[in-house]
């Protein structure tokens, strides 16, 4: 395939680029490409491609019909333009909608069979796929067990989930954690019941596109009353050039269940824009609790805004049951364009939604992100804490909706959006929508915009810190409330990401 040749040629370029980048130190750390043969479907999008994806995944007829219905609907839809992001028109016919590492044409039976280069890729990323992940700082930390914390990782390499660890232990607890393609085969009744029930295939342009062409993703089901024995983690990478990544994640927490899910994203550096349109659906039944944390540091493009990921994501949780709770935490430091609004539909009485976000945009990055809290049930509560940081020529927008319906008596929302500007060529914007339709609810919103405090910087400098260290420290302090909401494993990585993302933004 010509594309493969192109990939090899590009490798040489990338290696050279990488050396240059490394020499500059502190630039995008994950900018390399793994040399693995990749199997592409032809470029472009039509019904045949949708059928091919379905066939490659060995899907039943109902799912193919579901995809085709979404695809037909998508053709009628218009790309949304309301976000404060500007990018050249995307040619949806100039993308690959399916790519899988060739080594995986036959699924490995154990991790030993996984292509060692693939495992090396993850090692470079700093996520051991092997049995345990013990992270510095966890031991002895408040509330954490002294024993090693365990994290099950379902790594997604391009479009196919390559390996799931800890399967056995999870199986004993009754937790299903697998690739969604596998779940379609093994647990069709669950997938069929919940897939598209939170983000319907007709939801929005990007979600509908995802519904038509999603290739893989993760599926989690926690049975009633079960507390998932470990943090679940998935790791996305976009590797093959011009491959749109269309992940579909479905998490179902049955009555009284608890699960914490971590998602991390990195992608190698690239010169052409790449499209990513993921969908995450969460269902929480009575008394269930789901925590979903994301650290996203996809390639943001270079200083001039060339390259970088276009990240159009639909994430939504349905707090269907009474007293259910969903907590979204995100650290968004990557991508050229971020378009992402993790939301909670608070349907069950006394249900709770929380959203903690750090969005950092540097150089030419554009981020338009926020949340929606839809209060439908009585005495529902939501809390939004958003920290936006803009540097370079970046534009960073918080866009959120708090809607309290007439039936949602006694509901409560608190929203805090703070923006920090570093330099006078960037922008920070806040676009909250507040809709309150009953009087027994209370909604509060506050937002501030300011620059990095000169006095704090001066103090840090006077104690011998470099300007960049000082900025990183002040910014980490600004983000503290959100960093504290992250699982310990991510909090450490997130802090260093905050510092790395802002390098070159001062001076």
């Amino acid at each position: 395939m010509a594309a493969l040749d192109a990939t090899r040629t590009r490798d040489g370029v990338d290696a050279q680029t990488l050396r240059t980048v490394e020499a500059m130190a502190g630039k995008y750390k994950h900018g390399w490409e793994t040399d693995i043969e990749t199997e592409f479907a032809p470029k472009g999008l039509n019904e045949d491609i949708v059928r091919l994806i379905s066939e490659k995944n060995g899907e039943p007829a109902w799912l193919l019909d579901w995809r085709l219905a979404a695809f037909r609907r998508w053709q009628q839809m218009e790309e949304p333009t309301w976000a404060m992001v500007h990018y050249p028109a995307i040619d949806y016919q100039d993308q690959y909608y399916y790519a899988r590492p060739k080594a995986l044409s036959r699924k490995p039976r154990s991790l030993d069979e996984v292509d060692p280069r693939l495992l090396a890729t993850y090692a470079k990323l700093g996520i051991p796929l092997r049995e345990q992940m013990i992270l510095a700082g966890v031991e002895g930390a408040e509330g954490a067990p002294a024993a090693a914390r365990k994290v099950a990782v379902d790594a997604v390499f391009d479009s196919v989930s390559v390996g799931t660890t800890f399967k056995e232990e999870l199986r004993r607890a009754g937790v299903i954690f697998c690739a969604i393609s596998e779940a379609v085969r093994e647990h069709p009744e669950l997938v069929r019941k919940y897939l598209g029930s939170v983000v319907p295939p007709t939801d929005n342009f990007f979600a509908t596109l995802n519904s038509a062409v999603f290739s893989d993703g993760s599926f989690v089901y926690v049975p009633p009353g079960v507390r998932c024995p470990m943090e679940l983690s998935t790791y996305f990478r976009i590797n093959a050039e011009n491959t749109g990544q269309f992940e579909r994640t479905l998490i179902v927490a049955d009555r009284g269940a608890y699960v914490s899910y971590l998602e991390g994203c990195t992608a190698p550096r690239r010169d052409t824009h790449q499209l990513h349109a993921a969908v995450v659906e969460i269902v929480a039944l009575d008394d269930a609790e789901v925590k979903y944390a994301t650290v996203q540091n996809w390639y943001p493009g270079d200083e001039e805004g060339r390259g970088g990921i276009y990240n159009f994501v639909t994430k939504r949780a349905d707090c269907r049951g009474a007293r259910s709770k969903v907590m979204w935490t995100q650290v968004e430091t990557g991508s050229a364009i971020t378009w992402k609004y993790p939301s909670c539909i608070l349907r069950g009485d006394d249900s709770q939604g929380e959203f903690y976000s750090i969005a950092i945009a540097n150089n030419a990055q554009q981020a338009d992100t926020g949340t929606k809290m839809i209060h439908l049930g009585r005495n529902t509560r939501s809390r939004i804490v958003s920290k936006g940081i803009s540097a370079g020529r970046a534009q960073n927008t918080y866009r959120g909706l708090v809607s309290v319906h007439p039936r949602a008596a006694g509901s409560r929302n608190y929203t805090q959006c703070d923006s920090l500007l570093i330099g006078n060529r960037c922008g920070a914007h806040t676009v909250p929508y507040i809709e309150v339709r009953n009087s027994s609810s209370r909604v509060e919103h506050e937002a501030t915009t300011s620059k990095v405090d000169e006095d704090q910087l001066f103090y840090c400098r006077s104690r011998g810190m470099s300007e960049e260290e000082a900025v990183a420290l002040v910014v980490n302090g600004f983000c503290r409330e959100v960093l504290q909401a992250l699982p310990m494993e991510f909090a450490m990585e997130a802090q260093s990401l905050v510092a790395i993302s802002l390098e070159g933004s001062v001076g």
Partner: protein
Amino acid sequence: MARPDARPDARHAAESRLAAAPAGGGAWLRAAREAARERLLAMGLPGRRDEYWRYTDPADLTSAEAPAAAPPRAADGAEPFAAAEPLRLVFVDGLFDPAASDPPELAGVQIERLAEAAPRDLHWARDLFGAIEARGQTPVPRPLAALNTALAADGLLLRVSGRAERPVALVRRQAAEGSDVMLHHCIRIEPGAELTLLESGPGGARTTDVLEVDVGDGGRFHHVRLQGRDHGGRVAAHLFARVGAAAQLRAFTLTADGPLTRNEAYVELAGAGGLAHLAGAALGDGAFHHDDTVVLRHIAPGCESRQVFKKVLKNGAAGVFQGKIHVLAQAQKTDGYQIAQALLLDEASQFLAKPELEIYADDVKCSHGSTVGAIDPVALYYLRSRGVPRARAEALLVQAFLAEAVDEIADPTLAEDIRARLEAWVARHSG
């Protein structure tokens, strides 16, 4: 953000309304009207699908005929602002009534009407008429203002060269059931000059007004507006202002009742050290829809802006606030503040808000807050425990809630007038 071209139906609606455009007039006026016509055709009339009309249905403001509204009952209270002894200029159904007005003579203020100035080839208003309105079309499109610029045949033209010794009161009255009023006023405050403009209505079954104000360096403009009070009419009122260096603009609006009121404001702080305070108190009981759509644009460095909007809503009343602080890259040292609050007195009322910040300068201090809720039960309990009857306690808490907005009125006489009106409204609507 660039606005997409008008949808065909919105453009058609605009074309048919524009058919009533006045002919003739001096070259400056013809040019301004033609430009407004082009602006409007590019936008079309507003519809529910427009971003800034998602909370307010513009149908009654865009329809070919004004929805009928009975003229209000004869004024049962004191003449508004009588204590301030203003120079009164009266418009009845949009037509100037010289008999009811005071002689238009006031030291330091040149008073003219658009209808009189229209035939002239040259007029000072040529640099102002439609000019701030045109700039105020971004980032929030205001098609009804462009419609007014294209169609309005009359209005006041005030040129203030000194410190006006007493306020000018624009008194609007409605006589006919279907009157469709469109006035366009222009006010130029020369450097260092000062004027207080008082407005009271209602002025028609439907009013689509534009007020353009240019406050020169060091000048001051105070604006106190009274809307509603048993008013069945629909209102779309626009304030467009440019504030020069070290100049000040302070505007306050009290809206009491009315089925549909849309108050739009666009204020640009164009000179260093300028100040703009906009405040509003809205009181609605039953069929009441009140919308404040405000943009404060900081163009020059070191300016201060403040927006304080409060709404008290009961029996299914709806309040809308859409406000934006827009800080351009060169407007360093900006101090921007915005607060929008609603008190919902029963289950049926609603508050819809979109308080925005759009900021491109880093050395700024901008904040906004918005709260919605019922009367604080703890405060109510405290007052009742001190022997205050429930209705009185609620009235006190409502007045306390509105106080921050009323405090924005600098003149104590005017503030007292407004407080008395608020108190009377709360008393009439308590229980």
